[in-house]
């Protein structure tokens, strides 16, 4: 955090100055570690084992927060009789589908009890063997300190110190916060890493409370905003799922499945959010008779993420590619495949400030040097459209704490540079103009789409008008055209339109609250008048949990939101995240739904049972509880289960995307080390915004590789000399930095060397500083929930000297693959064991059938 979010880290430093203890868990020792009370060296990719060990420790040593866990989480809920755990099935949960790698979650559901108002069977003593609490306890029973050490490489005394610190620092008087970044997300089980942290925080009573929670440290100005108002294939604005063919053929199908009315909590109002979105997009054409234009929306038939789309490029099934302020030739996993994929396009539009590598790969890319691509043979047409930067346009970024902050425009963009707002507005106007007389039903959605935004004298549309549409407004009645004040005013009958329900309120009263700028020193620490946080300007989510069952703060020290007996309302320092007049003693009544069904002790108001989930009966594609598997390529054999890798990981089978053998498999010794990628303070992602700036380039001019003294000695690496680093996908070179900051760890009975490399450099002639790109070494193995690639624990080898040049480089990587006996199917086995049907013993792995190796490339 000190390296990648330096100014945010000032608050950690402040907390430390006031007595907070800071522990840093990372495969590298960084400036964060230098500031911490303790640094814990961990083997990259083993965080579930560590956090699972902490869960076990907290339960077995009675350090969990009893009242909180019993009433605010689903600990007491009973799970279906058919449920089987990874403990029973050697690493699988019940419901595994061998062919898809996914799960049927029927047996993960709660047991029904018609006598309970919410229909869920419970045991408030938490003793029932099928209670979530007991299931959780058994699931992590083997994650002992010794086992944690064997998996993660963390010494037992370090683990115990950490466990005691966290346990003692949680309860009524104290809270613990966890912060993470891509070190948790970029894995084939990234979502489960974060789930493990959530379980631990719930057990300790650290959610919904000041100084608690799990803090996602987003890497870019508005990563949060790009998920809220998503340019992501599987989402509509406000986390409404994108419609899926077969499942969501009609609006009714969609609503019944995605946002059922008969559930508890605020998702039950999803019909209002969805209909208002359709009204915002299709205006007068969205009527009750035509299901508000629901049929205008396209449908999904599976995953259409960026890596799946890349593979479709090789089939020549993608003609055009818009790349907007992004540099996939350097920033996406498996850079070589990215560039080869782009050579199969008919055309691409690159919008950026600079001639980034994604704009120049056709003449300056590494494949031109190796002879794999020839400029004169590449058919791809490239449009480079210069972009306006943050000073040259107005609009909002949503930062890492959901704070929507408005930027005022300072100057007009130079030359041909335009904002995305203007570019897309203009494109939309042109498309509509060309199709205005069409009678083809395919063109109807574009004809119906509302697209009237006021523009200024330079042609720039008003970002504030767009923000108002996002906020939502009334379409009929006396208030027609006026903005709504909050999402409870959204209606499912077409009388409101709104582009993103969670942002409702940002433009309440016709005022742009994202531009609120009361100086911090003139406000309390919540700073509600600086910008606006979704939802409802609430700064801490689920903050009803900051009070006890009776609605009183858990302690004076940690008070945030409480029930005011006299006024009969929830009140406090933050905007309460609960129906404001609902007393804490309220019980759920039979046959109630939605927000009305929330009991006084249901703080998790978006969950269908009002509780924090220690066990996830739905929502996760790879299991209801996190389970440690080894990374997609790992030199260590999984010490916990016979199942080596996550059986649900998404595999992309292609000659350009081959994987190293794992564990003790023959050939694994060719790629014996693990590398992890990271960010430097002075650069930003793929370098488009930093390697072209003189100051930043001067501060960090060169690609390097961090290795331990032990590995340097073993591999013969000279400090400040060159090293070649290779994976089954490619080979790069970097200057050697020998440092004690990297340390080998002992895990699974082996010494594992870990290597660190920054991911900002790329090959081209335009940037002020260039270098080989570490992402060329990454494979595309994805998390099955969010389709993010695994980038933080990757197999490699390292040797002294520069890499080969020209065609010899291709040959060099081929030879390594051959030496390791790698085929397109290596590492693709979903199950590393099979069960003998007669004895139920673990026996040999199943044989692999050819999964149609990908053509192209």
């Amino acid at each position, binding site marked *: 955090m000190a390296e990648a979010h*330096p*100014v945010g880290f000032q608050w950690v430093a402040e907390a430390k100055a006031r007595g907070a203890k800071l522990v840093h868990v990372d495969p590298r020792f960084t400036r964060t570690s230098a500031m911490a009370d303790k640094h814990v060296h961990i083997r990259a990719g083993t965080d579930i084992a560590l956090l699972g060990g902490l869960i076990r420790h907290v339960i077995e040593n009675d350090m969990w927060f009893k009242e909180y866990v019993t009433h605010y989480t689903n600990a007491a809920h009973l799970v279906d009789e058919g449920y089987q755990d990874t403990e029973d099935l050697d690493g699988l949960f019940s419901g595994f589908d061998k062919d898809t790698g996914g799960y049927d979650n029927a047996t993960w559901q709660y047991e029904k009890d018609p006598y309970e108002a919410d229909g869920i069977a419970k045991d408030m003593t938490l003793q029932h063997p099928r209670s979530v609490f007991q299931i959780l306890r058994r699931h992590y029973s083997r994650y002992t300190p010794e086992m944690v050490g064997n998996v993660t490489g963390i010494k037992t005394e370090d683990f115990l110190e950490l466990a005691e610190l966290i346990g003692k620092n949680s309860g009524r008087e104290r809270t613990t916060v966890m912060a993470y970044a891509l070190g948790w997300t970029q894995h084939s089980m990234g979502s489960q890493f974060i789930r493990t942290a959530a379980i631990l925080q719930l057990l300790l009573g650290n959610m919904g409370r000041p100084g608690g929670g799990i803090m996602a440290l*987003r890497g870019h*100005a*508005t*990563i949060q905003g*790009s998920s809220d108002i998503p*340019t*992501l294939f599987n989402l*509509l*604005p406000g986390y409404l799922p994108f419609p899926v063919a*077969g499942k969501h053929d009609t609006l009714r199908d969609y609503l019944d499945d995605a946002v059922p009315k008969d559930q508890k909590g605020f998702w039950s109002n999803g019909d209002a959010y969805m209909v208002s979105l359709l009204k915002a997009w299709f205006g007068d054409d969205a009527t009750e008779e035509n299901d508000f234009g629901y*049929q205008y929306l*396209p*449908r999904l*038939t599976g995953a*259409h993420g*960026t890596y799946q789309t890349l593979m*479709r490029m090789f089939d020549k099934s993608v003609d*055009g*590619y*818009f*790349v*907007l*302020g992004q*540099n996939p030739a350097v920033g*996406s996993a498996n850079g070589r495949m990215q560039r080869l994929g782009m050579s199969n396009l*008919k055309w691409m539009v690159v919008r950026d*400030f600079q*001639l980034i590598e994604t704009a120049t790969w056709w*003449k300056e890319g590494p494949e031109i040097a190796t002879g794999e691509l020839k*400029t004169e*043979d590449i058919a791809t047409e490239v449009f480079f459209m210069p972009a306006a*930067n*943050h000073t040259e346009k107005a*609009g909002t*970024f*949503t930062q*890492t704490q959901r704070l929507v902050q*408005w*930027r*005022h425009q300072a*100057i007009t963009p130079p030359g*041909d*540079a335009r904002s995305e707002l203007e570019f*897309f507005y203009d494109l939309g106007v*042109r498309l509509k103009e060309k*199709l205005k007389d069409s009678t083809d039903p*395919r063109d109807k959605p*574009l004809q*119906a789409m509302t697209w009237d935004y006021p523009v200024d004298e330079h042609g720039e549309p008003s970002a504030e008008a*767009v923000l108002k549409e996002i906020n939502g407004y009334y379409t009929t009645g006396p208030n027609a055209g006026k903005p709504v004040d909050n999402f409870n005013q959204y209606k499912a009958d077409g009388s409101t339109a709104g*582009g993103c329900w969670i942002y409702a309120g940002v433009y309440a009263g016709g005022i742009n609250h994202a531009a609120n700028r009361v*100086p*911090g020193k003139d406000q309390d620490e919540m*700073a509600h008048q*600086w910008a606006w946080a979704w939802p409802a300007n609430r700064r801490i989510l689920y903050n009803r949990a900051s009070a006890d069952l009776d609605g009183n703060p858990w302690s004076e020290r940690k008070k945030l939101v409480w029930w005011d007996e006299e006024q009969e309302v929830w009140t406090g320092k933050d905007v309460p995240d609960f129906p404001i007049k609902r007393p804490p003693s309220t019980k759920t009544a039979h046959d109630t739904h939605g927000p009305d069904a929330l009991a006084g002790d249901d703080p998790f108001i978006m969950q269908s049972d009002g509780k924090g989930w220690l066990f996830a009966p739905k929502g996760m594609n790879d299991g209801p509880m996190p389970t440690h598997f080894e990374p997609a390529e790992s030199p260590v054999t999984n010490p916990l289960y016979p199942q080596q890798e996550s059986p649900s990981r998404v595999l992309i089978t292609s000659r350009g995307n081959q994987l190293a053998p794992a564990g003790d498999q023959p050939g694994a010794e060719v790629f014996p080390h693990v590398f992890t990628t990271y960010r430097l303070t002075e650069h930003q992602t793929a370098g488009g*915004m930093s390697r072209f*700036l003189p100051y*930043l380039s001067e501060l960090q001019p060169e690609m390097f590789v961090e290795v331990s003294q032990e590995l340097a000695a073993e591999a013969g690496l000279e400090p400040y000399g060159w090293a070649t680093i290779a994976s089954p996908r490619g080979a790069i070179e970097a200057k050697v930095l020998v440092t004690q900051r990297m340390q080998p760890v002992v895990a699974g009975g082996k010494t594992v060397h870990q290597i660190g490399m920054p991911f900002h450099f790329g090959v081209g002639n335009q940037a002020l500083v260039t270098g080989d790109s570490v992402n060329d070494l990454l494979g595309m193995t994805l998390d099955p929930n969010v389709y993010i690639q695994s980038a933080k624990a990757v197999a490699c080898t390292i040797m002294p000297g520069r890499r080969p040049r020209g065609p010899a480089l291709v040959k060099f990587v081929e030879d390594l693959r051959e030496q390791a006996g790698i085929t397109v199917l290596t590492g693709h086995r979903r199950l590393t064991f099979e069960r003998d049907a007669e004895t139920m013993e673990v026996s040999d792995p199943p044989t692999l059938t050819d999964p149609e190796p990908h053509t192209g490339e």
Partner: protein
Amino acid sequence: MARFSVLGWPVFRQAKSKDKLGRGPAVESPKYANMRPRTEDADKVVQSVCPYCAVGCGQRIYVKDDEVIHIEGDPDSPISRGRLCPKGAASEQLVNTPVRQKTILYRRPYGTDWEELDLETAMEMITERFLEARRNHWEDFDEHGSPVNRTMGIASLGGATIDNEENYLIKKLFSAAGAVQIENQARI
């Protein structure tokens, strides 16, 4: 060279100006006394937000004659309290770096170099190609006969310095056009 004068002695200056610690007027050079902040010339100051990481530090942008002359931390921000890290502090160069590409460039199929293109021509060409790609890979139904109403011929990948308002228009336009392969750095 000026004639030596005892009056120029630092210790004398210190005594004379009652600058006990020798950190005030006694050590002020004429150069320093005449120095003026770069920001003084600005016509206007605009509140903004750093475009790099998601801490969201406040920035003050100093403008003269429609040009950014300086960017500094906004002390009003309760998040950053006036601080910027090296990236935020260098962001003036994001605007003014000499290597910035300000005009449209075009590479034709099999071309070996860039060509210039005016805005109107480029926008028309992109619009035509958009419609053609949309047609080429249009799908009405999936293999089970469920409606899909989409084109698989167009894809997009955006970075995370794209404003919410921009993402909103991008998602709206692509969805209405039937394009579903719309992605963002948030997935990477």
